[in-house]
Protein backbone atom coordinates (compact mmCIF):
# COMPACT_ATOMS: atom_id res chain seq x y z
CA UNK A 1 0.00 0.00 0.00
CA UNK A 2 1.21 3.49 -0.80
CA UNK A 3 2.37 5.72 2.01
CA UNK A 4 -0.52 7.95 3.17
CA UNK A 5 -0.10 11.68 2.49
CA UNK A 6 -2.11 12.47 5.56
CA UNK A 7 -2.11 10.13 8.52
CA UNK A 8 -4.06 10.66 11.71
CA UNK A 9 -3.62 8.45 14.75
CA UNK A 10 -5.49 8.43 18.05
CA UNK A 11 -6.79 11.98 17.76
CA UNK A 12 -8.86 13.17 20.73
CA UNK A 13 -10.43 16.56 21.31
CA UNK A 14 -12.84 17.29 24.09
CA UNK A 15 -14.90 20.46 24.66
CA UNK A 16 -16.19 20.21 28.23
CA UNK A 17 -18.21 17.00 28.31
CA UNK A 18 -18.45 16.83 24.51
CA UNK A 19 -16.10 14.44 22.76
CA UNK A 20 -15.69 16.09 19.37
CA UNK A 21 -12.92 13.70 18.32
CA UNK A 22 -12.79 10.34 20.04
CA UNK A 23 -9.68 8.35 19.17
CA UNK A 24 -9.88 9.13 15.46
CA UNK A 25 -7.66 7.25 12.99
CA UNK A 26 -7.78 8.46 9.41
CA UNK A 27 -5.64 8.06 6.27
CA UNK A 28 -5.59 9.93 3.01
CA UNK A 29 -3.78 8.02 0.26
CA UNK A 30 -2.17 9.52 -2.84
CA UNK A 31 -4.65 10.09 -5.65
CA UNK A 32 -7.80 9.29 -3.69
CA UNK A 33 -10.91 11.18 -2.72
CA UNK A 34 -11.68 10.17 0.83
CA UNK A 35 -15.03 11.48 1.98
CA UNK A 36 -15.86 12.11 5.61
CA UNK A 37 -19.57 11.97 6.31
CA UNK A 38 -21.67 12.00 9.43
CA UNK A 39 -24.69 13.67 10.97
CA UNK A 40 -24.59 17.29 12.11
CA UNK A 41 -22.55 17.72 15.25
CA UNK A 42 -20.55 14.55 14.63
CA UNK A 43 -17.29 16.53 14.82
CA UNK A 44 -16.41 16.80 11.13
CA UNK A 45 -15.52 20.48 11.23
CA UNK A 46 -13.58 20.03 14.45
CA UNK A 47 -11.54 17.32 12.75
CA UNK A 48 -10.86 19.57 9.73
CA UNK A 49 -9.78 22.39 12.02
CA UNK A 50 -7.35 20.11 13.82
CA UNK A 51 -5.90 18.92 10.53
CA UNK A 52 -5.56 22.52 9.30
CA UNK A 53 -3.89 23.53 12.58
CA UNK A 54 -6.56 25.98 13.68
CA UNK A 55 -7.22 24.08 16.89
CA UNK A 56 -4.86 21.74 18.67
CA UNK A 57 -5.86 18.17 19.60
CA UNK A 58 -5.71 17.06 23.24
CA UNK A 59 -4.05 13.77 22.29
CA UNK A 60 -2.94 12.16 19.06
CA UNK A 61 -0.66 12.61 16.10
CA UNK A 62 -1.17 14.21 12.69
CA UNK A 63 1.42 13.31 10.07
CA UNK A 64 1.46 15.16 6.78
CA UNK A 65 3.85 14.55 3.87
CA UNK A 66 5.94 12.25 6.05
CA UNK A 67 6.32 14.74 8.87
CA UNK A 68 4.71 15.06 12.31
CA UNK A 69 2.87 18.38 12.06
CA UNK A 70 0.87 18.10 15.29
CA UNK A 71 2.76 21.01 16.84
CA UNK A 72 2.75 23.27 13.79
CA UNK A 73 0.36 26.20 13.37
CA UNK A 74 -2.03 26.80 10.47
CA UNK A 75 0.41 29.04 8.56
CA UNK A 76 3.19 26.45 8.65
CA UNK A 77 0.85 23.67 7.52
CA UNK A 78 -0.52 25.78 4.68
CA UNK A 79 3.05 26.41 3.55
CA UNK A 80 3.73 22.68 3.57
CA UNK A 81 0.92 22.24 1.05
CA UNK A 82 -2.30 21.79 2.99
CA UNK A 83 -5.06 23.77 1.25
CA UNK A 84 -8.39 24.05 2.99
CA UNK A 85 -11.69 25.49 1.86
CA UNK A 86 -14.17 26.80 4.38
CA UNK A 87 -17.69 25.58 5.03
CA UNK A 88 -18.90 29.18 5.09
CA UNK A 89 -17.18 30.99 2.21
CA UNK A 90 -14.24 32.90 3.63
CA UNK A 91 -12.84 35.41 1.17
CA UNK A 92 -11.73 39.04 1.23
CA UNK A 93 -14.97 40.79 0.33
CA UNK A 94 -13.42 44.13 -0.63
CA UNK A 95 -10.95 42.53 -3.03
CA UNK A 96 -11.80 41.42 -6.53
CA UNK A 97 -11.88 37.76 -7.48
CA UNK A 98 -8.50 38.21 -9.16
CA UNK A 99 -6.95 39.85 -6.09
CA UNK A 100 -8.23 37.08 -3.83
CA UNK A 101 -6.62 34.40 -5.95
CA UNK A 102 -3.42 36.45 -6.43
CA UNK A 103 -3.11 36.44 -2.66
CA UNK A 104 -3.11 32.63 -2.72
CA UNK A 105 -0.40 32.62 -5.41
CA UNK A 106 1.58 35.09 -3.33
CA UNK A 107 1.21 32.79 -0.32
CA UNK A 108 2.50 29.84 -2.34
CA UNK A 109 5.47 31.84 -3.68
CA UNK A 110 6.15 33.09 -0.14
CA UNK A 111 6.97 36.51 -1.46
CA UNK A 112 4.60 38.84 0.31
CA UNK A 113 7.15 41.33 1.57
CA UNK A 114 7.42 43.36 -1.62
CA UNK A 115 6.58 46.98 -1.03
CA UNK A 116 6.98 48.92 -4.28
CA UNK A 117 5.92 47.02 -7.37
CA UNK A 118 2.19 47.09 -8.16
CA UNK A 119 0.86 43.58 -7.60
CA UNK A 120 -1.80 43.84 -10.29
CA UNK A 121 0.80 44.20 -13.04
CA UNK A 122 2.97 41.38 -11.70
CA UNK A 123 2.49 38.49 -14.10
CA UNK A 124 4.09 36.03 -11.71
CA UNK A 125 0.93 36.56 -9.66
CA UNK A 126 -1.71 37.28 -12.28
CA UNK A 127 -0.91 34.45 -14.72
CA UNK A 128 -1.27 31.58 -12.23
CA UNK A 129 -4.24 33.35 -10.61
CA UNK A 130 -6.07 33.70 -13.94
CA UNK A 131 -5.35 30.04 -14.73
CA UNK A 132 -6.98 28.97 -11.44
CA UNK A 133 -9.92 31.31 -12.03
CA UNK A 134 -10.43 29.87 -15.50
CA UNK A 135 -10.47 26.34 -14.08
CA UNK A 136 -13.46 27.16 -11.88
CA UNK A 137 -15.23 29.11 -14.62
CA UNK A 138 -15.03 32.58 -13.09
CA UNK A 139 -12.97 34.27 -15.83
CA UNK A 140 -15.86 36.59 -16.75
CA UNK A 141 -16.07 37.71 -13.12
CA UNK A 142 -12.40 38.28 -12.23
CA UNK A 143 -12.89 42.04 -11.78
CA UNK A 144 -15.92 41.72 -9.51
CA UNK A 145 -15.58 42.33 -5.78
CA UNK A 146 -15.75 38.99 -3.97
CA UNK A 147 -18.39 40.50 -1.68
CA UNK A 148 -20.67 41.05 -4.68
CA UNK A 149 -20.49 37.47 -5.97
CA UNK A 150 -23.44 35.09 -5.81
CA UNK A 151 -23.29 32.25 -3.32
CA UNK A 152 -22.37 29.71 -5.99
CA UNK A 153 -19.65 31.93 -7.43
CA UNK A 154 -18.17 32.37 -3.98
CA UNK A 155 -18.06 28.59 -3.57
CA UNK A 156 -16.17 28.40 -6.87
CA UNK A 157 -13.77 31.11 -5.67
CA UNK A 158 -13.05 28.98 -2.59
CA UNK A 159 -11.98 26.18 -4.91
CA UNK A 160 -9.88 28.56 -7.03
CA UNK A 161 -8.01 29.69 -3.90
CA UNK A 162 -7.22 26.08 -3.02
CA UNK A 163 -6.14 25.38 -6.62
CA UNK A 164 -3.83 28.38 -6.75
CA UNK A 165 -1.95 27.03 -3.74
CA UNK A 166 -0.96 23.96 -5.82
CA UNK A 167 -1.26 21.91 -2.62
CA UNK A 168 -0.28 18.37 -1.67
CA UNK A 169 -3.70 17.84 -0.07
CA UNK A 170 -7.11 19.45 -0.49
CA UNK A 171 -9.21 19.72 2.66
CA UNK A 172 -12.66 20.62 1.39
CA UNK A 173 -15.19 21.43 4.10
CA UNK A 174 -18.66 21.05 2.56
CA UNK A 175 -17.88 22.61 -0.82
CA UNK A 176 -21.49 22.01 -1.93
CA UNK A 177 -23.02 23.81 1.06
CA UNK A 178 -26.01 25.85 -0.04
CA UNK A 179 -25.70 24.97 -3.74
CA UNK A 180 -28.74 24.10 -5.85
CA UNK A 181 -28.81 20.76 -7.71
CA UNK A 182 -27.54 22.39 -10.92
CA UNK A 183 -24.60 24.07 -9.20
CA UNK A 184 -23.82 20.95 -7.19
CA UNK A 185 -23.55 18.92 -10.39
CA UNK A 186 -21.12 21.29 -12.07
CA UNK A 187 -19.06 21.57 -8.87
CA UNK A 188 -18.93 17.77 -8.68
CA UNK A 189 -17.42 17.74 -12.16
CA UNK A 190 -14.88 20.32 -11.13
CA UNK A 191 -13.86 18.41 -7.99
CA UNK A 192 -13.54 15.24 -10.01
CA UNK A 193 -10.79 16.96 -11.98
CA UNK A 194 -8.98 18.08 -8.82
CA UNK A 195 -8.15 14.56 -7.72
CA UNK A 196 -5.45 14.37 -10.38
CA UNK A 197 -3.56 17.23 -8.72
CA UNK A 198 -3.73 16.12 -5.11
CA UNK A 199 -5.77 13.79 -2.92
CA UNK A 200 -8.94 15.24 -1.44
CA UNK A 201 -10.39 14.95 2.03
CA UNK A 202 -14.00 15.78 1.31
CA UNK A 203 -16.45 16.63 4.06
CA UNK A 204 -19.88 16.73 2.47
CA UNK A 205 -23.57 16.34 3.23
CA UNK A 206 -24.62 15.96 -0.40
CA UNK A 207 -24.70 12.16 -0.70
CA UNK A 208 -25.11 12.21 -4.46
CA UNK A 209 -21.81 14.10 -4.74
CA UNK A 210 -20.11 11.88 -2.17
CA UNK A 211 -21.12 8.67 -3.94
CA UNK A 212 -20.06 10.10 -7.30
CA UNK A 213 -16.64 11.30 -6.13
CA UNK A 214 -15.40 9.22 -3.24
CA UNK A 215 -12.99 6.32 -3.55
CA UNK A 216 -13.41 5.66 0.15
CA UNK A 217 -15.80 6.93 2.78
CA UNK A 218 -15.36 7.25 6.53
CA UNK A 219 -18.37 7.76 8.74
CA UNK A 220 -18.03 9.91 11.83
CA UNK A 221 -20.66 9.68 14.57
CA UNK A 222 -20.29 11.37 17.97
CA UNK A 223 -16.60 11.94 17.32
CA UNK A 224 -15.86 8.29 16.46
CA UNK A 225 -15.15 6.80 13.06
CA UNK A 226 -17.64 3.92 12.99
CA UNK A 227 -16.78 2.64 9.50
CA UNK A 228 -14.32 3.16 6.65
CA UNK A 229 -14.73 1.53 3.25
CA UNK A 230 -15.64 1.83 -0.40
CA UNK A 231 -18.93 3.37 -1.45
CA UNK A 232 -20.56 -0.06 -1.79
CA UNK A 233 -19.24 -1.22 1.58
CA UNK A 234 -20.52 1.87 3.34
CA UNK A 235 -23.92 1.71 1.64
CA UNK A 236 -24.33 -1.85 2.88
CA UNK A 237 -22.92 -1.35 6.37
CA UNK A 238 -25.65 -2.01 8.91
CA UNK A 239 -24.20 0.26 11.60
CA UNK A 240 -23.88 3.13 9.13
CA UNK A 241 -27.43 2.66 7.86
CA UNK A 242 -28.71 2.73 11.40
CA UNK A 243 -26.70 5.73 12.44
CA UNK A 244 -26.86 7.87 9.38
CA UNK A 245 -28.06 6.79 5.98
CA UNK A 246 -31.15 5.16 7.42
CA UNK A 247 -32.44 8.51 8.54
CA UNK A 248 -32.64 9.67 4.94
CA UNK A 249 -34.24 6.52 3.60
CA UNK A 250 -36.85 6.53 6.35
CA UNK A 251 -38.26 9.82 5.05
Amino acid at each position, binding site marked *: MAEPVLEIRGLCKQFGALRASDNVDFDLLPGEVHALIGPNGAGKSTLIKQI*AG*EIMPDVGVIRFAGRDVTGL*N*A*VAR*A*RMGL*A*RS*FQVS*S*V*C*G*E*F*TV*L*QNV*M*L*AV*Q*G*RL*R*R*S*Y*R*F*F*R*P*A*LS*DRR*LTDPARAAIARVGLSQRE*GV*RAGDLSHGERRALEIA*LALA*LKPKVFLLDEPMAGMGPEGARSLTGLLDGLRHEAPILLVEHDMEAVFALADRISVLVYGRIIATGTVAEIQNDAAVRAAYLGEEEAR
Partner: protein
Amino acid sequence: MSRETMINATLAVGLLAVAVGAQAAGWTFTVTLATKVAILALAGVGLNVALGFGGLVSFGHAAFFGIGGYAAGILASHAMLYEPVLTWPVEIEGTRAMPAIWLMAIAASGLAALVIGALSLRTRGVFFIMITLAFAQMIYYFAISWPAYGGEDGLSLGMRNTFPGLDTLDPLSFFAICYVLLMIVLGLSALLHRSRFGMALGAARQNPERLKSLGIDPTRVLLTACVLSAMVTGLAGALYADLNRFVSPAMLSWQTSGEIMIFVILGGVGRLFGPLAGAALYIVLEHSLGGVSEHWQFLLGLILLLVVLFARGGLVGVIAGERRHG
Protein backbone atom coordinates in the same frame (compact mmCIF):
# COMPACT_ATOMS: atom_id res chain seq x y z
CA MET B 1 -8.54 60.62 -13.91
CA SER B 2 -10.85 59.45 -11.13
CA ARG B 3 -12.55 61.94 -8.88
CA GLU B 4 -10.41 60.91 -5.94
CA THR B 5 -7.21 61.54 -7.94
CA MET B 6 -8.52 65.01 -8.77
CA ILE B 7 -9.25 65.73 -5.12
CA ASN B 8 -5.78 64.51 -4.19
CA ALA B 9 -4.17 66.76 -6.80
CA THR B 10 -6.27 69.70 -5.61
CA LEU B 11 -5.19 69.14 -2.01
CA ALA B 12 -1.52 68.85 -2.97
CA VAL B 13 -1.54 71.92 -5.23
CA GLY B 14 -3.74 73.85 -2.79
CA LEU B 15 -1.36 73.45 0.12
CA LEU B 16 1.59 74.50 -2.04
CA ALA B 17 -0.32 77.51 -3.38
CA VAL B 18 -1.29 78.67 0.11
CA ALA B 19 2.32 78.55 1.29
CA VAL B 20 3.81 80.23 -1.78
CA GLY B 21 1.06 82.86 -1.92
CA ALA B 22 1.37 83.66 1.78
CA GLN B 23 5.14 84.02 1.49
CA ALA B 24 4.71 86.40 -1.45
CA ALA B 25 2.20 88.43 0.55
CA GLY B 26 4.53 88.46 3.55
CA TRP B 27 2.16 86.47 5.82
CA THR B 28 4.83 84.34 7.41
CA PHE B 29 2.44 83.04 10.05
CA THR B 30 0.28 81.48 7.35
CA VAL B 31 3.37 79.81 5.86
CA THR B 32 4.05 78.35 9.27
CA LEU B 33 0.46 77.09 9.48
CA ALA B 34 0.79 75.44 6.06
CA THR B 35 4.00 73.82 7.30
CA LYS B 36 2.16 72.58 10.36
CA VAL B 37 -0.53 71.08 8.12
CA ALA B 38 2.12 69.27 6.05
CA ILE B 39 3.82 67.86 9.16
CA LEU B 40 0.62 66.78 10.90
CA ALA B 41 -0.64 65.26 7.65
CA LEU B 42 2.61 63.29 7.48
CA ALA B 43 1.99 61.97 10.99
CA GLY B 44 -1.50 60.98 9.83
CA VAL B 45 -0.17 59.29 6.67
CA GLY B 46 1.92 57.16 9.02
CA LEU B 47 -1.06 56.22 11.19
CA ASN B 48 -3.14 55.55 8.07
CA VAL B 49 -0.82 52.65 7.14
CA ALA B 50 -1.72 50.87 10.39
CA LEU B 51 -5.27 52.17 10.87
CA GLY B 52 -6.51 52.57 7.33
CA PHE B 53 -4.73 49.81 5.42
CA GLY B 54 -4.27 47.34 8.29
CA GLY B 55 -7.32 48.12 10.43
CA LEU B 56 -5.18 48.46 13.54
CA VAL B 57 -6.62 51.14 15.80
CA SER B 58 -3.45 52.38 17.46
CA PHE B 59 -4.12 54.88 20.22
CA GLY B 60 -0.41 55.20 20.88
CA HIS B 61 1.01 56.96 17.85
CA ALA B 62 1.96 59.93 20.00
CA ALA B 63 4.75 57.67 21.26
CA PHE B 64 6.33 57.58 17.80
CA PHE B 65 5.60 61.24 17.11
CA GLY B 66 7.28 62.12 20.41
CA ILE B 67 10.20 59.75 19.94
CA GLY B 68 10.87 61.40 16.58
CA GLY B 69 10.65 64.80 18.26
CA TYR B 70 12.98 63.84 21.08
CA ALA B 71 15.43 62.30 18.60
CA ALA B 72 15.67 65.73 16.96
CA GLY B 73 15.84 67.54 20.29
CA ILE B 74 18.41 65.27 21.89
CA LEU B 75 20.73 65.18 18.87
CA ALA B 76 20.54 68.97 18.49
CA SER B 77 21.12 69.71 22.17
CA HIS B 78 24.19 67.45 22.21
CA ALA B 79 25.51 69.13 19.09
CA MET B 80 25.18 72.49 20.81
CA LEU B 81 27.17 71.27 23.82
CA TYR B 82 29.67 69.23 21.76
CA GLU B 83 28.91 66.14 23.85
CA PRO B 84 28.28 62.73 22.30
CA VAL B 85 24.79 61.29 22.89
CA LEU B 86 26.20 57.83 23.49
CA THR B 87 29.75 56.59 23.91
CA TRP B 88 28.91 52.93 24.38
CA PRO B 89 28.28 50.51 22.64
CA VAL B 90 28.59 52.81 19.66
CA GLU B 91 29.54 56.44 19.74
CA ILE B 92 26.72 58.67 18.55
CA GLU B 93 27.61 62.32 18.14
CA GLY B 94 25.05 65.06 18.34
CA THR B 95 24.13 66.64 15.03
CA ARG B 96 22.26 69.58 13.60
CA ALA B 97 21.92 68.13 10.12
CA MET B 98 18.31 67.33 9.36
CA PRO B 99 18.93 64.26 7.16
CA ALA B 100 20.94 62.58 9.93
CA ILE B 101 18.31 63.56 12.48
CA TRP B 102 15.53 62.15 10.31
CA LEU B 103 17.33 58.83 9.97
CA MET B 104 17.74 58.61 13.73
CA ALA B 105 14.10 59.57 14.29
CA ILE B 106 12.94 56.94 11.80
CA ALA B 107 15.20 54.26 13.30
CA ALA B 108 14.25 55.03 16.89
CA SER B 109 10.50 55.11 16.27
CA GLY B 110 10.66 51.99 14.09
CA LEU B 111 12.54 50.14 16.82
CA ALA B 112 10.03 51.27 19.44
CA ALA B 113 7.18 50.10 17.20
CA LEU B 114 8.83 46.72 16.77
CA VAL B 115 8.79 46.18 20.54
CA ILE B 116 5.41 47.80 21.23
CA GLY B 117 3.83 46.13 18.19
CA ALA B 118 5.15 42.67 18.99
CA LEU B 119 3.60 42.89 22.46
CA SER B 120 0.38 44.69 21.44
CA LEU B 121 -0.39 42.37 18.51
CA ARG B 122 -1.02 39.53 20.94
CA THR B 123 -4.39 41.22 21.26
CA ARG B 124 -6.83 42.79 18.79
CA GLY B 125 -9.76 45.14 18.95
CA VAL B 126 -10.36 47.17 22.06
CA PHE B 127 -7.47 45.53 23.93
CA PHE B 128 -5.08 46.58 21.18
CA ILE B 129 -6.31 50.17 21.56
CA MET B 130 -5.75 50.07 25.32
CA ILE B 131 -2.35 48.42 25.21
CA THR B 132 -0.97 50.87 22.64
CA LEU B 133 -2.32 53.71 24.78
CA ALA B 134 -0.65 52.20 27.84
CA PHE B 135 2.74 52.01 26.11
CA ALA B 136 2.47 55.61 24.92
CA GLN B 137 1.58 56.75 28.44
CA MET B 138 4.59 54.90 29.85
CA ILE B 139 6.88 56.77 27.47
CA TYR B 140 5.08 60.03 28.29
CA TYR B 141 5.68 59.66 32.03
CA PHE B 142 9.23 58.56 31.38
CA ALA B 143 9.88 61.78 29.44
CA ILE B 144 8.32 63.88 32.20
CA SER B 145 10.52 62.31 34.87
CA TRP B 146 13.78 62.39 32.92
CA PRO B 147 15.51 65.62 33.96
CA ALA B 148 18.47 65.25 31.57
CA TYR B 149 16.29 66.40 28.66
CA GLY B 150 14.12 68.98 30.36
CA GLY B 151 11.59 66.71 32.04
CA GLU B 152 8.21 68.38 32.23
CA ASP B 153 9.57 71.67 30.85
CA GLY B 154 10.66 70.16 27.58
CA LEU B 155 13.76 70.81 25.60
CA SER B 156 14.61 73.80 23.42
CA LEU B 157 16.43 73.29 20.15
CA GLY B 158 17.66 76.88 20.00
CA MET B 159 18.29 77.38 16.31
CA ARG B 160 16.43 75.34 13.71
CA ASN B 161 18.47 72.38 12.47
CA THR B 162 20.22 72.65 9.14
CA PHE B 163 19.66 71.29 5.68
CA PRO B 164 22.45 71.49 3.08
CA GLY B 165 21.92 74.37 0.67
CA LEU B 166 18.82 75.82 2.37
CA ASP B 167 18.21 78.45 4.99
CA THR B 168 15.84 76.48 7.21
CA LEU B 169 14.85 79.61 9.15
CA ASP B 170 13.24 80.98 6.01
CA PRO B 171 9.61 79.86 6.44
CA LEU B 172 9.10 78.90 2.80
CA SER B 173 12.34 76.86 2.67
CA PHE B 174 11.32 74.89 5.73
CA PHE B 175 7.84 74.45 4.30
CA ALA B 176 9.38 73.14 1.08
CA ILE B 177 11.36 70.52 3.02
CA CYS B 178 8.25 69.31 4.85
CA TYR B 179 6.09 69.43 1.74
CA VAL B 180 8.54 67.43 -0.38
CA LEU B 181 8.87 64.82 2.36
CA LEU B 182 5.08 64.60 2.61
CA MET B 183 4.75 64.09 -1.14
CA ILE B 184 7.51 61.46 -1.22
CA VAL B 185 5.91 59.54 1.63
CA LEU B 186 2.46 59.83 0.05
CA GLY B 187 3.93 58.37 -3.14
CA LEU B 188 5.55 55.51 -1.23
CA SER B 189 2.29 54.94 0.62
CA ALA B 190 0.41 54.71 -2.70
CA LEU B 191 2.95 52.17 -3.96
CA LEU B 192 2.69 50.20 -0.73
CA HIS B 193 -1.09 50.10 -0.99
CA ARG B 194 -0.92 48.50 -4.46
CA SER B 195 2.03 46.21 -3.74
CA ARG B 196 2.00 42.57 -2.71
CA PHE B 197 2.53 43.66 0.85
CA GLY B 198 -0.39 46.09 0.61
CA MET B 199 -2.61 43.27 -0.61
CA ALA B 200 -1.54 41.01 2.26
CA LEU B 201 -2.12 43.90 4.67
CA GLY B 202 -5.64 44.49 3.33
CA ALA B 203 -6.35 40.78 3.69
CA ALA B 204 -5.02 40.80 7.26
CA ARG B 205 -7.61 43.49 8.01
CA GLN B 206 -10.49 41.80 6.19
CA ASN B 207 -9.97 38.13 6.90
CA PRO B 208 -6.92 37.06 8.94
CA GLU B 209 -8.09 33.44 9.17
CA ARG B 210 -8.19 33.14 5.40
CA LEU B 211 -4.74 34.70 5.12
CA LYS B 212 -3.35 32.06 7.49
CA SER B 213 -4.84 29.31 5.35
CA LEU B 214 -2.92 30.75 2.39
CA GLY B 215 0.36 30.42 4.30
CA ILE B 216 0.76 34.11 5.13
CA ASP B 217 1.07 35.01 8.81
CA PRO B 218 -1.23 38.00 9.48
CA THR B 219 0.55 38.93 12.70
CA ARG B 220 3.88 39.34 10.92
CA VAL B 221 2.24 41.40 8.19
CA LEU B 222 0.58 43.65 10.76
CA LEU B 223 3.79 44.02 12.78
CA THR B 224 5.63 45.13 9.65
CA ALA B 225 2.85 47.64 8.98
CA CYS B 226 3.15 48.93 12.55
CA VAL B 227 6.87 49.51 12.13
CA LEU B 228 6.48 51.30 8.76
CA SER B 229 3.62 53.34 10.18
CA ALA B 230 5.66 54.40 13.21
CA MET B 231 8.67 55.33 11.07
CA VAL B 232 6.59 57.84 9.12
CA THR B 233 4.98 59.29 12.23
CA GLY B 234 8.44 59.47 13.85
CA LEU B 235 9.77 61.44 10.89
CA ALA B 236 6.84 63.83 11.26
CA GLY B 237 7.72 64.20 14.95
CA ALA B 238 11.28 65.24 14.10
CA LEU B 239 9.95 67.89 11.69
CA TYR B 240 7.45 69.10 14.27
CA ALA B 241 10.23 69.59 16.79
CA ASP B 242 12.09 71.66 14.23
CA LEU B 243 9.00 73.66 13.36
CA ASN B 244 8.55 74.73 16.99
CA ARG B 245 12.27 74.56 17.80
CA PHE B 246 11.05 72.91 20.97
CA VAL B 247 10.15 69.42 22.19
CA SER B 248 8.00 68.68 25.19
CA PRO B 249 6.24 65.68 26.70
CA ALA B 250 3.00 67.11 25.23
CA MET B 251 4.05 65.53 21.92
CA LEU B 252 3.85 62.15 23.69
CA SER B 253 0.51 62.73 25.39
CA TRP B 254 -2.61 60.73 24.59
CA GLN B 255 -4.26 63.90 23.28
CA THR B 256 -1.67 63.91 20.51
CA SER B 257 -2.56 60.29 19.67
CA GLY B 258 -6.19 61.36 19.52
CA GLU B 259 -5.45 64.31 17.26
CA ILE B 260 -3.49 62.19 14.78
CA MET B 261 -6.40 59.77 14.73
CA ILE B 262 -8.83 62.65 14.17
CA PHE B 263 -6.87 63.76 11.07
CA VAL B 264 -7.21 60.27 9.61
CA ILE B 265 -10.89 59.85 10.46
CA LEU B 266 -11.87 63.36 9.33
CA GLY B 267 -10.10 62.94 6.01
CA GLY B 268 -11.20 59.36 5.41
CA VAL B 269 -9.81 56.16 6.89
CA GLY B 270 -7.68 54.30 4.35
CA ARG B 271 -7.86 57.16 1.83
CA LEU B 272 -4.43 58.06 0.55
CA PHE B 273 -4.81 61.84 0.96
CA GLY B 274 -7.30 61.59 3.82
CA PRO B 275 -4.77 62.66 6.47
CA LEU B 276 -3.90 65.80 4.47
CA ALA B 277 -7.56 66.76 4.14
CA GLY B 278 -8.12 66.01 7.83
CA ALA B 279 -5.08 67.91 9.09
CA ALA B 280 -5.90 70.91 6.89
CA LEU B 281 -9.49 71.06 8.16
CA TYR B 282 -8.28 70.70 11.75
CA ILE B 283 -5.80 73.56 11.47
CA VAL B 284 -8.28 75.80 9.62
CA LEU B 285 -10.89 75.20 12.32
CA GLU B 286 -8.40 75.72 15.11
CA HIS B 287 -7.27 79.07 13.75
CA SER B 288 -10.53 80.43 12.39
CA LEU B 289 -12.69 79.43 15.34
CA GLY B 290 -10.01 79.33 18.02
CA GLY B 291 -9.90 83.14 17.90
CA VAL B 292 -13.68 83.42 18.29
CA SER B 293 -14.11 80.98 21.14
CA GLU B 294 -11.83 78.76 23.13
CA HIS B 295 -14.52 76.11 22.88
CA TRP B 296 -13.83 75.57 19.17
CA GLN B 297 -13.25 71.91 19.87
CA PHE B 298 -16.97 71.58 20.54
CA LEU B 299 -17.55 72.26 16.86
CA LEU B 300 -14.69 69.91 15.93
CA GLY B 301 -16.40 67.23 17.99
CA LEU B 302 -19.68 67.88 16.20
CA ILE B 303 -18.04 67.57 12.77
CA LEU B 304 -16.26 64.40 13.85
CA LEU B 305 -19.58 63.00 15.03
CA LEU B 306 -21.24 63.79 11.70
CA VAL B 307 -18.37 62.20 9.75
CA VAL B 308 -18.47 59.02 11.84
CA LEU B 309 -22.27 58.76 11.68
CA PHE B 310 -22.95 59.76 8.09
CA ALA B 311 -19.70 59.81 6.11
CA ARG B 312 -17.44 56.92 7.00
CA GLY B 313 -15.28 57.76 3.99
CA GLY B 314 -14.44 61.10 5.61
CA LEU B 315 -14.04 64.34 3.66
CA VAL B 316 -12.35 62.65 0.71
CA GLY B 317 -15.06 59.99 0.72
CA VAL B 318 -17.88 62.54 0.70
CA ILE B 319 -16.48 64.30 -2.36
CA ALA B 320 -15.07 61.28 -4.21
CA GLY B 321 -17.98 58.95 -3.56
CA GLU B 322 -17.75 55.21 -3.14
CA ARG B 323 -14.25 53.85 -2.78
CA ARG B 324 -12.97 52.07 -5.85
CA HIS B 325 -11.02 48.91 -5.44
CA GLY B 326 -8.33 47.26 -7.44
